[in-house]
């Protein structure tokens, strides 16, 4: 058990690469999760019975089981049915499906929170149901759910640390690589500091975002 600063400066290029990977995965899965969640939530509010059951099952299953289990499910399971994708794509897929379920639940909540009058008013203008959803309800609901969404999305960066379990070189993995080589936990500490810095940046950014899009009533 040692702690040396020299190691960190030696491994700095590796850390930088890992940081880029972490950020890339987070950005990709955030965008995909937002899209997936929006689509699922909108489809749920259209009120098609059989579709609703399927979507509810999806949301409930992915919200109530650990991301690590889902990750292993895809990582070990997909090659078995003949689908071979890189661990990067597996990671993005698992995080997207997981966070998409949370995002769907948040947006569905705010769609339900939009007063019924809006639906009726739009209907009286002769808009079809999908048009109402797309042009009237969804923009309002999305704006209302921004505070909850930013909270959820700040968790994505933490989720990416799990991808070290499927042999993807990102921050946590670099930390454990250093530990395995030199029995030195400096790598873990440095990775932790990087994560905390990213979190603080995202947190402040989301604070600005919330302020900008606050609904004035």
């Amino acid at each position, binding site marked *: *058990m040692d702690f040396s600063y020299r190691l960190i400066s030696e491994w700095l290029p590796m850390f930088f690469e890992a940081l880029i990977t972490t950020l890339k995965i987070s950005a990709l899965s955030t965008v995909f999760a937002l899209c997936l969640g929006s689509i699922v939530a909108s489809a749920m509010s259209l009120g098609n019975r059989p579709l609703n059951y399927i979507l509810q099952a999806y949301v409930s*299953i992915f919200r109530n*089981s*650990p991301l690590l*289990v889902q990750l*292993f499910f895809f990582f*070990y399971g997909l090659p078995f049915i003949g689908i071979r994708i890189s661990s990067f794509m597996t990671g993005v897929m698992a995080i997207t499906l997981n966070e998409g379920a949370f995002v769907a639940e948040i947006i569905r909540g705010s769609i339900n929170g939009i007063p019924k009058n809006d639906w009726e008013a739009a209907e009286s203008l002769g808009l079809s149901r999908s048009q109402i959803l797309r042009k009237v309800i969804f923009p309002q609901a999305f704006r209302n759910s921004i505070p909850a969404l930013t909270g959820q999305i700040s968790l994505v960066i*933490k989720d990416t640390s799990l991808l070290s379990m499927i042999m993807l070189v990102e921050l946590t993995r670099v930390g454990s690589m250093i530990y395995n080589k030199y029995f030195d936990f400096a790598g873990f*500490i440095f990775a932790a500091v990087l*994560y905390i810095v990213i979190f603080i940046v995202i947190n402040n950014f989301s604070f600005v975002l919330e302020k900008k899009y606050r609904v004035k009533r």
Partner: protein
Amino acid sequence: MEITFLDILNTLKKGALETIKILPLCMLFSLITGTILGAIQSKKIPVVKYLINAYIIVMRGIPPLLLMMVFFFALNINVPFFAAIIVLSIYHSGYITEIVRGGIEAIPKGQFEAAESLGLSNFKIMTKVIIPQIWYQVIPALAGQYIILIKDTALISVIGVREILWSGRQLMQLTFKPFQIFFLIGTFFYLICFTLQQISIWAEKSLKQKIVDSGGRT
């Protein structure tokens, strides 16, 4: 030797028992620490305030997996079981501190003043008057946090606790039946989380009923 479905179930059962052993301990410790820190935080003591804030930010920013590795490898805690309990408790008490602080701040100021006018000490005001009242407010958020805690117990297989996911990965190397194994593990977590969710809904409702029955007085 052929490994049957029954063997898989039996092995997973052993792991599941270990998970169930760890869970209540983590829940209890994180609740106790979180409540104490939350009570201190609501007092807004100058220096302590910033220390607890820093602790909360670190816990919110760091991934639980990394925290586990830091504790297990850096602090040389050689018993994985204790390391797991310590890490999960520390991690989640950061969040529970915020939840409890929010609950305390939602209690009307009059309560504090009334208790003070009865001559109670600060400690007694907290423990006898304020804390018992916050649970109704706090239950939904607390249940949400506990569900995250339950899901985080899947991570402790990394530091070698022989819980359900650890057994699952061992089985995976023997049998190569990923779908069965990980589906069963997922179902196990799903059942626990779902039960907890239902309990929290029931508890919230029954507490609400109690308040209504007592004529609006909490």
